[in-house]
C-alpha cells in the first residue's frame, strides 16, 4: 500500500506527495504527457531528442546537471512511445534545489543552437549504438510498421530514420516545448523524507507562477482492427535466425489488459513457464523464447520471440509457437497454473515497494491513467482474473489474421555456417 496526498495548482499542475520518513532521501519525478506517438510523421524521434535538450540549460540556469550534483543529487529521464519521464533523487535536506531546477525548465529552456547540434550528434550515436550497430538491433524498426499501419506507434521512440534527427531545427524545438511542456500536461510526484505541507509551499513558490499554457488535445489516428495475416522476411549479419510473431491487443485502460498480461506470464515468466518447459527443455527447438506485451496506452502488442536451435527450420519453429497458442485457446489454464502467475505478480508488487523511485514513478503513471489510487488496487485486479477470461483473451488475440510475423535470417558471415539459409530463401 503506497499512501499519498494530492493537490492541483491553479495553473493545472497535478502534484502527489508520498511521505516516507524511513529514508534520508527524496525523489522528485515529473511525467510529461507526451511521447513518440505525439510526433509528426515527418519529424519522428523528436520527443526523445527533446528529452536530451531538456538537459541543455534552461532560461535562468545555464547548466542543469552541475547544481544538482553539487547538492548530492542524481537525475535521469526516459522517453517512450507514450510518455516522457524525468526524475531526481537527492538528500531530502536539499529538496528545494530539485524544485528550482525542474520549475525553471518547465518555465522555459535556453534553446541554445550549440546544445541542439551536440545532442543531435549524441542521439545519432545512440541510434547507431542501440539500433544499427547491434545484432538484431533493427528489429523494432521493422516490426512496428508491420503491426501498425495508421497509428504513430508505427515508428520507434528513437525515430524512423536518422535523417529526421539530422533535420531537427531550433524552431521545431521551440514549438514542441510550447505545445507539450506546460503545467497542464505534467504530473509531479515528490516522495521520501518530505511533508505534504512542505511540498505544497515549495510547489506554489517555484511552479505557481508558470503560465498554464495551452492544453494539448490529443487526437491521434487510431489503428483499425487487423484483418489479414502479415509477414516479412529480413536478414542481417547475425549468427542465428530469429522469429517474431506480434499480435494487436487491447489498450492499457481496457479490463482485458489483466488477463492478457497473465497470458504472457503463463507462456514465458520463469523456468516453470510453458514456452520454457516445452520448447526449450522438452522439445529442444529454441535456445531462447519470450512472450511479452507492450502495455501501451493505445492499442498494444503481444509479442512472441524466439531463436530456434541451429538446424531447426523456421517453419517448424513457427508451428511450435502456434501449437502453444492453440493450446491456450482450446483448454482453460489449470487453476494452479493461474494461481502461480498471480502469486508471482503479487510478490513483485511487494518487492516494488522497496524502491522509493519506483513508487514515485508508479504513482505518476497511474495518475496519468486516471487515478494514482489504482496502483494500490492493481494486485487485486490480477488476482481476480479467471481461467475463462484467460481463454477468452487467447481466442480473441491469437488469430492468424491478427498476426504479424517477422522472420530474421542469419546471413552467412565470419565463417558461420548456416545450412538452412538457402532452403529458407526458396
Amino acid at each position: 500500500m503506497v499512501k499519498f496526498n494530492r493537490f492541483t495548482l491553479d495553473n493545472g499542475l497535478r502534484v502527489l506527495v508520498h511521505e516516507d520518513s524511513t529514508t534520508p532521501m527524496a525523489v522528485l519525478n515529473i511525467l510529461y504527457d507526451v511521447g513518440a506517438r505525439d510526433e509528426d510523421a515527418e519529424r519522428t524521434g523528436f520527443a526523445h531528442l527533446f528529452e536530451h535538450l531538456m538537459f541543455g540549460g534552461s532560461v535562468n540556469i545555464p547548466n542543469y546537471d552541475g547544481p544538482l550534483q553539487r547538492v548530492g543529487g542524481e537525475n535521469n529521464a526516459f522517453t517512450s512511445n507514450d510518455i516522457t519521464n524525468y526524475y531526481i533523487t537527492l538528500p531530502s535536506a536539499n529538496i528545494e534545489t530539485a524544485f528550482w531546477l525542474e520549475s525553471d525548465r518547465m518555465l522555459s529552456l535556453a534553446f541554445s543552437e550549440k546544445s541542439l547540434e551536440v545532442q543531435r550528434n549524441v542521439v545519432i550515436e545512440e541510434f547507431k549504438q542501440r539500433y544499427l550497430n547491434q545484432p538484431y538491433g533493427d528489429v523494432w524498426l521493422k516490426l512496428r510498421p508491420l503491426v501498425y499501419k495508421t497509428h504513430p506507434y508505427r515508428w520507434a521512440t528513437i525515430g524512423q530514420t536518422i535523417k529526421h534527427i539530422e533535420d531537427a531545427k531550433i524552431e521545431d524545438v521551440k514549438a514542441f516545448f510550447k505545445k507539450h511542456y506546460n503545467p497542464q500536461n505534467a504530473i509531479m510526484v515528490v516522495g521520501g523524507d518530505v511533508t505534504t505541507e512542505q511540498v505544497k509551499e515549495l510547489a506554489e513558490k517555484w511552479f505557481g507562477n508558470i503560465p498554464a499554457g495551452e492544453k494539448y488535445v490529443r487526437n491521434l489516428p487510431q489503428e483499425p482492427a487487423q484483418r489479414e495475416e502479415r509477414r516479412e522476411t529480413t536478414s542481417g549479419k547475425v549468427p542465428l535466425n530469429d522469429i517474431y510473431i506480434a499480435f494487436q491487443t487491447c489498450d492499457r485502460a481496457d479490463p482485458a489488459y489483466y488477463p492478457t498480461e497473465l497470458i504472457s506470464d503463463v507462456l514465458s515468466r520463469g523456468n516453470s513457464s510453458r514456452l520454457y518447459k516445452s520448447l526449450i527443455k522438452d522439445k529442444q527447438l529454441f535456445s531462447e523464447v519470450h512472450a511479452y506485451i507492450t502495455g501501451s496506452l493505445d492499442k498494444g502488442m503481444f509479442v512472441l520471440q524466439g531463436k530456434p536451435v541451429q538446424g531447426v527450420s523456421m517453419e517448424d519453429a513457427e508451428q511450435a509457437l502456434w501449437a502453444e497458442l492453440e493450446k491456450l485457446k482450446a483448454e482453460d489454464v489449470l487453476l494452479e497454473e493461474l494461481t502461480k502467475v498471480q502469486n508471482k505478480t503479487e510478490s513483485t508488487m511487494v518487492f516494488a515497494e522497496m524502491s522509493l523511485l519506483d513508487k514515485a514513478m508508479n504513482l505518476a503513471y497511474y495518475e496519468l491513467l486516471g487515478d494514482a489510487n489504482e496502483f494500490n488496487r492493481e494486485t487485486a485486479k490480477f488476482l481476480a482474473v479467471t481461467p475463462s477470461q484467460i481463454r477468452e483473451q487467447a481466442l480473441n488475440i491469437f488469430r492468424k489474421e491478427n498476426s504479424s510475423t517477422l522472420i530474421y535470417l542469419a546471413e552467412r558471415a565470419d565463417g558461420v555456417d548456416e545450412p538452412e539459409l538457402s532452403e529458407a530463401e526458396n
Partner: protein
Amino acid sequence: MTELDRKTPPQFNGVENINLIHPERQTLVNGTKLFVFNSGEQDLVRIEFIFSNLRFDPAKPLMNVAVNTLLNDGTTTMTAAQIADKIDFYGAFLQFDYGYDNSQVTLYTLTKHLNATLPVVKEVLTDSIFPEKELATYKRNQQQKLQVSLQKNDFVARRLFNEAVFGDTIYGKAAQPEDFQSLNREDMLQHFKQMYQPANCTIVIAGKAGAEVIAAVTNTFEDDWNNTTAKGDTNQPEVKSAEERFIYKEKAGALQSAIRIGTPFVKRSHPDFPALQVLNTVLGGYFGSRLMSNIREDKGYTYGIGSGMASFKNAGSFFIASEVGADVCKAALTEVEKEINQLKADLIPDEELSLVRNFMLGSLLGSLENVMSHADKFKNIYFSGLGYDYYERYAETVKNITAQDLKALANKYYDFDNFYKVVVGKY
C-alpha cells in the same frame, strides 16, 4: 510580493551522517558464516548463499559458471521443472549468479512462504545431480548465446581487455564457443562436491528477518549438512598481464567502435583506493565528468563514456569504456589522452572538486535505499577483508582530499602511454 530569484541556487546542506546498518553475526556448527540485516516494512527477505570459486583451470574455463548455473537443473528428488514449479508457485525468485571470486544462490521470498521455499534451496545446494540431458541443453543454448554476444563490439572489447590485463586467470580468460563441448558431468559433480560445502559458505539475510526467520535458516542448514574431506582449493594464481599494449580487432562495416583503455590497478584494500575513487569520479565516474562533458556533451562523439575501477580478491583494474562513431575513433582516443594528461598537469579547480565531493557523498547516501543495499555495502568490505572503518575512511577522504593530493595520485597511477588500449570496430 517580491519577485522570485530564479538565478541563484537555493541554500543547500552537506551530507553529514551516513548510518550503515551493521549485521548480527553467527557461525553455524558446520562452519557456515551467517550475517543478518533485520529491517524494513515489507514482509519479505533476501537470502544469499555465497561460495568462493575454486582455483581456475585455464583448460576448463567454464567449470565455475556452469556448475553454478546448473544447480537449477535437478536434484536426486526434484527435476528442473519441479524446482521451477515450486519456486514460482510461491511467488519466490531463485537466482544463480556467477562472479569472478564467488558464485552464489539467492532466494527472494515473502516471509510467509519461507518454510516452503527454503527446503528447495537446501536441496539444490546439497544434492544437485547435473542431469546429462540438462547439461546438453545448457551447452547448446549457451553456445548460441555466446555467438550472439560475440557480434557485439563492446562485449568483444571487454573480453580482449580483460585477457590483456588479467592474462590466463579467472578474471582474464574468457570461454570460447567450443569450450562448452568439453564440459562433462563427472567433472562438474566433483567440482560441486568440493565447492558447495558449509565451511566455504557465507549466508547473508536481509529484510524482515526476525528470530523465526533466523531460526528457520539455521535449522535448515545445520541439519545434516557437513563438510567432507575433499575440500576444494579456493586460492587463485597470480595475474600476469600481456606485453602488447594495443589490441585492435577490425570489424568490416562497423558504424561504431568499442574502445576500452586501462591498466591493472590497486584493489579496494589499498590505502589509496578511496582517493583514487575521487579521481576516477572527476575523470569519468558521473554524468558531469570530464570525459562525458568533453567527448559526449561538447563533441557529440558518443552516447556515453565512463571510467571505473574493478576490485577483486586477487586483482584490480582501472578502465575507460565507450562506443564512439567509427569516423571519430582516433579523435576520441586523443581526447581521452588529453583528459588524463590534464589531471596530471593541472590542479582540479575548487568548484569542481567540491561538486564531486558532494555528489559522491549524496550518491553514497542514495545508494542505501533499503535494507538490501545495506547488506550489499557490507559484502563490499567483507569480501575485501575490510571492516566498517573503510566507509569512515572513504567519507573522510571524499570530504578532505586536496587538489594537490589528487594531482600527485594522477601522476603516480595514470600513464596513458602504458595503458592497454583495445579497439573493436574501425580505427
